[in-house]
């Protein structure tokens, strides 16, 4: 189990019937050079870089999935999630407030900015936010645990697994139109699916 899919690349199917034109257009944009920063401020962007490096570390990747840039684009496009909890401000404000509060927590704890803290210290701050055990003053009326779960972690995790490199990593078939699949049963796979590493 969890042996991985060495050598499997979803994008190798680019010119096969698993990719249609519309999907190529969308995926091409996804893997292109990330667009210039539009939503976060410079310091916020640095902080986001540091946070996502702990939420989803990618030491194995020569070219990490540009999560901070993807987050910036997601926020700038403003499509959001289509709702918010009554205890949360609108998503844009929630992010700005949450980032400032995480930075404040790091400074109180370690006397230095989050981005400059040691990885273990960064993790300790994030764990404290996740469990709500932080200095609430900086969070105003927002619940830190809800922010961590519903905004920070949920969106970041979603965006990471929206990238073709992550699809290849977990052996997902990826785009599948118009061809789809033929072999659907247990332990069955089509020739255009990922092969799992031998045990």
């Amino acid at each position, binding site marked *: 189990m969890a042996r991985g899919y060495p050598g499997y690349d979803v994008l190798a199917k680019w010119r096969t019937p698993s990719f249609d034109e519309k999907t190529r257009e*969308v995926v091409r944009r996804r893997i292109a050079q990330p667009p210039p920063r539009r939503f976060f401020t410079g310091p916020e962007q640095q902080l986001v870089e540091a946070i996502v490096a702990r939420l989803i570390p990618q030491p194995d990747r020569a070219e990490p999935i540009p999560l901070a840039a993807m987050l910036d684009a997601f926020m700038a496009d403003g499509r959001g999630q289509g709702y918010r909890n009554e205890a949360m401000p609108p998503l844009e404000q929630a992010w700005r407030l949450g980032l400032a509060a995480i930075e404040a927590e790091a400074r109180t704890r370690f006397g230095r900015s989050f981005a400059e803290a040691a990885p273990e210290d960064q993790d300790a701050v994030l764990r404290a936010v996740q469990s709500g055990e932080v200095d609430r003053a900086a969070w105003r009326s927002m619940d830190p645990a809800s922010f961590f779960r519903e905004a920070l972690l949920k969106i970041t995790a*979603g965006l990471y697994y929206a990238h073709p490199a992550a699809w290849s990593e977990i052996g997902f*078939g990826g785009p599948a139109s118009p*061809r789809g699949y033929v072999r659907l049963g247990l332990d069955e796979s089509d020739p255009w699916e990922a092969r799992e590493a031998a045990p």
Partner: protein
Amino acid sequence: MTPETPRAGDGRAPDVFTPGGFVPMTGFPEREPVDFAIVGAGAGGATLAAKLAEAGFSVVVFDAGPFWRPLDEFASDELEQQKLYWTDPRITGGDDPIALGGNNSGRGVGGSTIHFSMISLRFRPEWFKARSRLGYAVDWPISYEEIRPYYAEAEQALKVAGPVRYPWGPLRGPYPYRPHEVNAPGLVLGRGAEKLGVKWCATPLATVSAPRGKSPPCVYRGFCNFGCSTNAKQSALVVWIPRALKAGAEVRDMAMVTRIEIDRDGLASGVHYVREGESRFQRARNVVVAGYAIETPRLLLNSACPQFPDGLANASGLVGTHLMTHASPGVWATFEEEIRWYKGPPNMAVCEHWNYADEGKDFAGGYAFMSQGPLPMAWAQTVATSRGLWGPALRQQMLRYNHTAGFAPVAETEPRPQNRVELAEETDAYGLKIPKVVFGYSGNDRALQRHSLRFMSEMLEAAGGRDLWTSTDTSHLLGTCRMGDDPRTSVVNADGRTWDIANLWICDGSLFPTSGGVNPSLTIQALACRIGERIKTLARRGELACAP
């Protein structure tokens, strides 16, 4: 032209079956009243539009969202396809706040059936008389016998693919199309069910298992919740909208209805709507609201006027109340075998045992449950939020993606007045008050979910699953404009006609007095077929403000 520019108009509408193509469409002038102005082109609205146009009425259907051409515009991509969802601002609250957005409703011609999972189940007959036959909740104003022919009509219209003999409920004929081959996650359910000695079967699905007209058979690409790019899925966009257009209805896409106008006699006289940034007004002899269980009560409440200061059709004070959801707590496990649950429609096997068994329950109501097939983005979000995993632990867990299977129920919740849709003070881009959804589970709701988690876990283990864990979630929203026999305890009668305003109708999931333990869209479409038939009869008898 972006999808946000209207495409239907000037005598034509997009042809869903041809890249870049168009079909002819009738155009109605705004100053002449049409027989029916329908708000919302989803499961309820599109079905009714086809039925009424085919009966000879003049019909204009408004939808706030785009008129998609799936062949051109639906990518095999979760993130891109978030464009299908209703993402205008909404607030969620209460003891158990419901996740909205893509979790429950769509925006566009075809409504939520564009991204639905195609599960097409009938209600258990007794649920229409839940209070008198089973002793809980309330009775519907119609019986199973009354809706049965319309279930058959809807199943035929959608060419539902399902078993020859459905294992639960009254004996009936085979489904129109043969069942789909069950995928690995479904076979896991089957294996578990057989170990536990309960019945299971291939889920009846509204995606074709053989060619049908211009719809090719399903190719099992698995992106159903993100729009079907092949048109195998029998959504309202592919089934009812072409029928409505052919029968002479007009569809106005990118047209957000903001208010229903009431004349001096207290009758509806048309709808105000915004299209291409312009405020417009369509006169109508009848108005039907079919905007989904949130937008429907919201529009009625936002249309308050001096004659109806508490909102339209709200003399009972019930508009927006009795909101129900289906709880869908999941149980997940790791398997030795490769499952690869991204293939095929997400829910290919079903067990309705606890909808039909009445013994051995410590709760009222029922639940069906199905095998699951989440795609990576959605799955990562479930793993991360339910288990709080991040860092290397998250990536580790996600590596098991192809070895994971699980079940989730469609778990009935009780209709309770305190669960509701109301207006918040905040306004949206149209200047309309945004909806606030307030929800909390009852003790019975919780007992039912605990039972489902226990039973599904047992079955998953029996099927060979290891390292079980659970998640919480909800799906469909229903109720909020319940139908009934008594104007004091309901908003509309059995025909979807509001008690207070004789030419104002409702035709969508808002009508449900109870939620039942199955997915709602087949019942919504059957109700719409019945309402269409009833309107025809009433018109013939001279009981309407118009005749076909």
